[in-house]
């Protein structure tokens, strides 16, 4: 273990740096998000993820946000275990009828102000699963949604972009 830890000390970090240039998507995104999030809620935004019937593809990519390449926490964004600690609900899946009540109760347990981000194509309108007897047809059918992040599944970068887009209007608002 010592060797691995030592190596990590001398090796340059894997985390993709926030470059100064505007076209370096990931880093730029992170820095802007940090500014906007701090304005709105101080230093951090807490995210509670709710799988409402996803195939688990979205969960894989949301989990990836925590790996060394994306390192979500450096932006002040972190995943929390309870909706009572959350500012953002990140909801995936077409919202199955069997998950409807659980999603509603999670939403009610989240204190205001809160945002709901629907992640993945099937969270938008049911996607490929639309029309089934077992799904409600998207997150919007059950709780109010502030933003949709499309993709099947969206990549970690796209999800980060989505979180930024959610905060953009807030940033403008506080500036004006």
């Amino acid at each position, binding site marked *: 273990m010592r060797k691995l830890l030592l190596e990590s000390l001398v090796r340059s970090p894997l985390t993709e740096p926030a470059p100064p240039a505007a076209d370096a998507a990931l880093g730029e995104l992170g820095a802007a998000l940090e500014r906007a999030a701090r304005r709105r809620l101080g230093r951090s935004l807490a995210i509670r993820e709710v*799988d409402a019937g996803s195939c688990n593809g979205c969960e894989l990519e949301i989990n990836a946000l925590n*790996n060394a390449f994306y390192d979500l926490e450096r932006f002040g964004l972190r995943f929390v*275990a309870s909706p009572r600690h959350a500012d953002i609900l990140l909801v995936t899946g*077409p919202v199955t009828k*069997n998950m409807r009540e659980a999603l509603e109760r999670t939403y009610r347990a989240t204190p205001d102000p809160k945002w709901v981000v629907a992640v993945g194509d099937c969270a938008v309108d049911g996607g*490929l*699963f639309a029309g*089934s007897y077992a*799904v409600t047809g998207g997150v919007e059918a059950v709780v109010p949604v502030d933003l949709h992040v499309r993709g*099947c599944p969206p990549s970690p970068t796209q999800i980060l972009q989505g979180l930024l887009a959610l905060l953009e209007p807030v940033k403008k608002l506080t500036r004006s």
Partner: protein
Amino acid sequence: MAALDDILNSGSPVQQAPWPRILVDETRWQEAAQQLAGGRLVLLGLWGERAAVHMALLDEERGQVAIVSIGAASGRFPSVAAVHPPALRLERAIQDLFGLEPEGLPDRRSWLDHGVWGVAAPLGRSGSSAPTGRYAFLPSEGESLHQIPVGPVHAGIIEPGHFRFTANGETVVRLEERLGYVHKGIESLMQGAELAHGAKLAGRVSGDSSVAYALGFARAAEAALGIEPPARAVWLRALMAELERLANHFGDIGAICNDAAFALMHAHCGVLRERVLRAADIAFGHRLMRDVILPGGLARDLGTEGISAIVALIAEARRRFPALVELYDGTASLQDRTVGTGILRPELAVQFGAGGYVGRASGRRFDARLKPGYPPYDRLRFAVPVRAEGDVNARVWIRIDEVEQSLYLVEQIVAGLPAGAVLSTARPAHASGEGASLSEGFRGDILVWLRLGEDGRIARCHLRDPSWFQWPLLEAAIEGNIVADFPLCNKSFNCSYSGHDL
């Protein structure tokens, strides 16, 4: 062993590729159930139709598979679960989806149907009734017992399901799972769909097994249509399947250690997983390699850039992984959590026909790539690791050993990749028909059964996730462990909620 032959000679055959399917009467059906109960055959799947029930049987020694079917026009069929418990949840699901009654079923509670669909028996006959009232969990009796309900929304970024623990102090006396929360009705969406649409749906049954499901669906469709994918497509499919296995195993090894509060492994394994996904993105245009495998071949070919990305990935994994294995093996505090925890007894793994690392960590040497087997694995060299301890540690080691094997397989595939087209242009031998396949995903064997109608559309498609035979075993493995070790045990099984709930 002639168990399967006896059954095959006893009914009327129906056209089916690549395995025989025969129609049997009640007596023969029950005889087959007895063969399962006696351990002479393994249950591969049990699924319904409007007026029939099918059961896939495996003669493990010979790698032979057969499907037996029984008519259920009366609305009833003899329960297999009455003598063979692994069929229990499958029959409860048949009851929910088709309104057919398994006669003698020991547990009549609904399984996938939570009473909110607004329709009863959605794939079956009308006139059935949906479940009402509260779900009754199984009782536990004794002094000082308390219950802990967990879920369906869990604390982490994971899928939803409900776990009802009954504990005596810290020790779990009983765990009962309640699943079905992510039931999307995929089999109903399959009915009447075009093949291409069916392939997309199949690739979304369980996101972590996108490739394995698309592969299983394509192979079943090709068997039904009587077409052969080009050799290059067959090899590239195996390449994708091994990359998927690598990504998931890296992720799992890290996540299991993380559930034992050892974050260093999680961080390093997460890096390796991300590298696999990035290489997959370059090579096949999608991080999870979705919608690449089609009936008849592939939607896209692998270019030179993709090959270099994969070669670089393998080199990096070979450079980094051994140190992580050493770290896992040499950290006493971590071993303290994983060794001897969540033991699954070998008899249960055999009885349930548990596939993947769950079965192999408990002594069951079954791998669909070898038996019944499918190309190109007959041309490749690889070993199937097996351990006997059945604990969390053994399930970690099976994954570690399988990573080694998959790295080796990827190298062989890249070296031996045939040239040529990746999509067959041959006309199907028949427009309609039935086909089936058994494909090895990272989690275990995935069964796909498909019937195409005269119009070439899907008449019925059943997809059986390996988790059906692993979830019940988690209940057994956790017994006597402390509640705090449940996440560790659960992650070491890593069953699919979505694949199971469908």
